């Protein structure tokens, strides 16, 4: 009985239109911009907005990477939504960077350049964003066809570097060692460790395995 209701639930999950995932996924962004414009983000609203957008970027990035192990270990198949999660991660990263450049730094090119060169957390954060950009641009069927699946897969391995950079960026922004960035770093390590373990003992070959990562 339980198993049946579970499979029913999983089947329903699969039928959710992708557009709904995009819309629901952007609700936090709209919500935090709304709070910010209405002076509801506390004493330091710019920092709060930046922080929330960055956090959601990291969450969607980790969700994207969690899809493969979820199917393998929990039998939950969300592969249909992987592109949506990945693109949402990029959208949030882009909003995070935009708030930093336009609102936080007030579009001051000198200060931006100095930050980028001298502050490792900015350098690493920007690196993460730049790594995600080509992945977002090629996240459509036409690009997969044009590039060929092998090249496309090779390119999209950049996501591993991007998530490492994002997790490190989070740790570098804070004083001392508070729990939250460490938890995100641990999840990142677990999701990458899973892939490392899989590449060490290949069960299938080539593209099929790659697609499954």
């Amino acid at each position, binding site marked *: 009985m339980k198993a049946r209701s579970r499979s029913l639930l999983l089947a329903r999950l699969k039928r959710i239109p992708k557009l709904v995932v995009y819309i629901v996924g952007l609700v936090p962004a709209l919500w935090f911009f709304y709070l910010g414009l209405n002076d509801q983000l*506390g004493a*330091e*609203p710019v*920092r709060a*907005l930046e922080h929330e957008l960055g956090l959601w970027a990291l969450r969607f990035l980790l969700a994207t990477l969690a899809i493969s192990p979820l199917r393998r270990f929990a039998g939950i198949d969300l592969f249909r939504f992987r592109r949506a999660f990945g693109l949402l991660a990029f959208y949030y990263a882009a909003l995070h960077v935009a708030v930093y450049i336009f609102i936080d730094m*007030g579009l001051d090119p000198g200060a931006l350049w100095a930050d980028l060169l001298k502050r490792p957390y900015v350098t690493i954060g920007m690196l993460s964003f730049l790594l995600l950009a080509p992945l977002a641009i090629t996240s459509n069927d036409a690009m997969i066809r044009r590039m060929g699946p092998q090249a496309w897969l090779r390119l999209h391995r950049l996501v591993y570097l991007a998530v490492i950079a994002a997790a490190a960026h989070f740790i570098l922004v804070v*004083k*001392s*060692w*508070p729990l939250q960035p460490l938890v995100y770093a641990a999840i990142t390590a677990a999701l990458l460790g899973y892939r490392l373990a899989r590449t060490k003992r290949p069960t299938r070959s080539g593209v099929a395995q790659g697609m499954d990562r």
Partner: protein
Amino acid sequence: MLIPRPSSVPASEITPRSLYLRRREFIAGAGGLGLSGLFSGSAASARLPAAKSPFSTQEPPTPLKDVTSYNNYYEFGSGKADPAANAQSLTVDPWQVSVEGLVAKPAQYQLEDFIKPHALEDRIYRMRCVEGWSMVVPWIGFPLAEVINSAEPLGSAKFVAFETLVRPKEMSGQRGLLQLLDWPYVEGLRLDEAMHPLTILAVGLYGETLPNQNGAPLRLVVPWKYGFKSIKSIVRIRLVESQPQTSWNKQAPREYGFYSNVNPNVDHPRWSQGTERRIGEGGLFAKRRPTLMFNGYADQVASLYSGMDLKEFF
């Protein structure tokens, strides 16, 4: 030029202070409803009469709401809202504080006796956090120099070491697996910095006794240094011969020096100190403002550091 005036509210519409103060009786009454735990230990704030001071800035003070809800006080958690949420559990009355070490008259005081000899002053100071934000806080306090003088320091005393309470039962950040600093929180000043007229021990803000999240019942305020130097909830003031350890310096010596003077020309290794965001000023689109040398107190304190390389002694 039009100068905006405060809106005139008829006296009849202001809640009489006596009634307003009775809100605590109402809160106490809630105890009968099983709510006592919610409020226990919260100190009744009391009005503190204080004289104006020429050391006060003319800048508009940061709203009380921000001063009391956006705090760094790791004994109650690392989030900015944690102290306001968790510090109500701290018992600040009774409170003992000791003045000891290289002094002719060491003593332990009850807080009332410690404060009694001193005339309270309003000190409206800029406060610059090492994280790049700032406030203007109307403190109430008295010069630390008075305390040091009356303890009669010995000739060998060169530094002053301060210590915050350790009471894990009431300080949630001192419990559990992941503790962010070594306890007790310790801070220190050179004796001449401690004796400087700008350096005060604060017992109140905005006309009333200190809220717990702001370091009740007794804290240091050194306005030309980054906020973490202004140690909260002090239980020990000790005069010593050599430079004392300080908490953030122990935690990350490359990032937080003993002096920690506000200095826009010496960056924190991980972020710039050239600008700051003034809390409560202009919402989401508020511009950063340039950070001033010694937080704008250079005229008064720069001479303390003449001949020193402030990049080395950061």
